[in-house]
């Protein structure tokens, strides 16, 4: 598909002159407008476009926030309040940026689960998937460092706990944390470097997104049937079919985004972050933002410091080898009846991990009441441990075995066949042309 010749014909003399020097319009026509796209993509395929829009929104709101923000421990907190109270529309820009991060993660999680359900990581899309995992990793680093910048209590203690993870590394741990902090604790040098990197990394993400789209355009889109495109009858040009479908989904998503920004701008945050950072007092209950909670639960599930850190990083890095852990040749979960049930169990398990990461380790699950020590009780920690075990079992046991044991349903001969069978059940019996 990468070799797909575009139908671009320069219309004016200037366009022809320009085309001979930089064939960018040719690329736009071939890769963005005429790009042959499976004709059966559903709305789960619109989240790539939604994510691109969210990245642009984060960069634009971020660049203007920097015009009013001061990265210094004595002034950072006040400059954020200055943005909220004094700067024209500052409250709107900050709420867009803060809630935009959450929307970005909602969209990326739907995008990732879509890939997992429809087997979009399987050959020949392994590299496309791995670049996606890399983008997700950089996104996490960016979000973490951005959360530190307002220099509230949760900013400070989140930064301290996460940077301290590196002290678990044998031998070099202490030197690495000192290097990260630029001191003996999270302090002004730390804030300054996080600010610098928080500004840089979104552009790194933008670069990785270009690679992600490039890889996508080499192998082409997966689709809900998971059956490869067999010919032009299976595709439609990207524009207008998917530009319009994506645009519609983006508008709906922006409405959802606006609901948060205008009606619940602080719901996804923590009230204690409106207290200025105090290095001498840890808040009674520190938790990361919602999008990191499952990984936080995995960190706490292992009673050993180094073990917890290894498990947490492993839970993300395991996604890189997912294409080789899933042994089934059938891509789409629609044709894998047993996988489909395990997929949903896995999704529910991720939500449970999120809840397990949200409470005090020794309290009863979904309660604030402390459980008696030295006695069996269903605590946040225990739930986290069970869910962590299941998380890894899904990748290391269930997926490899399912591919060998499961009998998939018969696949349609082509995308066109599947589409016709859906709208005219009798047509499926007619041999494809």
């Amino acid at each position: 598909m990468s070799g797909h010749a575009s139908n671009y014909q320069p219309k004016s003399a200037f366009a022809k002159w320009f085309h001979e020097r930089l064939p960018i319009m040719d690329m736009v026509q071939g890769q963005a407008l005429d790009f042959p796209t499976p004709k059966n993509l559903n709305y789960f395929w619109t989240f790539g476009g939604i994510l691109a829009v969210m990245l642009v929104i984060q960069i634009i709101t971020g660049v203007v926030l920097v015009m009013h923000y001061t990265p210094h421990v004595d002034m950072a907190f006040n400059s954020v309040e200055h943005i909220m109270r004094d700067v024209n529309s500052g409250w709107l820009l900050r709420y867009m940026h803060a809630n935009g991060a959450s929307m970005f993660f909602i969209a990326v999680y739907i995008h990732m689960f879509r890939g997992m359900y429809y087997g979009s990581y399987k050959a020949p899309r392994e590299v496309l998937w791995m670049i996606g995992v890399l983008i997700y990793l950089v996104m996490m680093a960016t979000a973490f460092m951005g959360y530190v910048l307002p220099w509230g209590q949760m900013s400070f203690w989140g930064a301290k706990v996460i940077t301290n993870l590196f002290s678990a590394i044998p031998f070099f741990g202490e030197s690495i944390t000192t290097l990260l902090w630029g001191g003996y604790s999270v302090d002004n040098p730390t804030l300054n470097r996080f600010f610098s990197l928080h500004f840089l990394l979104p552009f790194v993400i933008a670069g990785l997104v270009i690679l992600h789209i490039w890889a996508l355009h080499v192998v082409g889109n997966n689709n809900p049937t998971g059956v490869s495109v067999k010919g032009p009858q299976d595709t439609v040009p990207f524009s207008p079919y998917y530009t319009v479908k994506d645009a519609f989904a983006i508008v709906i998503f922006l409405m959802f985004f606006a609901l948060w920004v205008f009606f619940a701008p602080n719901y996804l945050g923590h009230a204690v972050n409106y207290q200025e950072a105090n290095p001498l007092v840890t808040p009674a209950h520190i938790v990361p933002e919602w999008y990191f909670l499952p990984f936080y639960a995995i960190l706490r599930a292992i009673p050993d410091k180094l073990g917890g850190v290894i498990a947490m990083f492993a839970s993300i890095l395991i996604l890189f080898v997912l294409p080789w852990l899933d042994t089934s040749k059938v891509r789409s979960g629609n044709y894998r009846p047993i996988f489909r049930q395990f997929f949903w169990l896995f999704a529910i398990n991720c939500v449970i991990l999120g809840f397990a990461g949200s409470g005090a380790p020794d309290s009863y699950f979904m309660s604030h009441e402390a459980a008696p020590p030295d006695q069996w009780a269903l605590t946040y920690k225990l739930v986290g441990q069970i869910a962590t075990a299941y998380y890894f079992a899904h990748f290391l046991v269930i997926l490899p075995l399912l591919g060998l044991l499961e009998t998939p349903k018969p696949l349609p001969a082509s995308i066109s066949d599947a589409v016709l069978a859906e709208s005219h059940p009798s047509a499926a019996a007619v041999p494809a042309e």
Partner: protein
Amino acid sequence: MSTAEHAETNRRDFLYIATGSVAAVGAALAVWPFINQMNPDASVLALASVEVDLAPIAEGQEITIKWRGNPVFVRHRLPAEIEAANKVALSDLKDPLARNANLSDGDPATDANRVVGGKEQYLVMMGVCTHLGCVPIGNEGEYAVVEGNVRHGGWFCPCHGSNYDTAGRIRKGPAPENLHIPQYAYLSDSKIRIG
């Protein structure tokens, strides 16, 4: 150039490899300042020491001071707290080492090794949980001395539930080490300098 010259290593191959090696070493050396700039700078290193007057700290009271950006606990312990700490067998400790910057690395974590001889009532240690760096809460946790419904000594970390005893030694929870004891010295009977 003959084909024979192509087949084996010649002067040109040597020059390529030598040039490449010099460039690689040069690039590696050039990276170092960009990494090393992240280490603590001179102004951070200059904040080396702080003096504390122990006289105003009443028995059973604890103060927190800031040293190098971190909290330091200075606690005037009750006799019961010292007694409780002395009763613990070394084999019951999760971390058997004193973690005292004033002693050598291998010293055992007896209560005597956590304080200065003759000044057992004053416990001076970093208020930084050795798990992930939160500040433990004093007079809390399962290893405090309990009198009625009042707790004396002992620390509990709110972040991930580590419990420290009345000598600041880790007893339960994910933290791997006893609370660290910074370098400090008595300047007079009731004054210390930390750092």
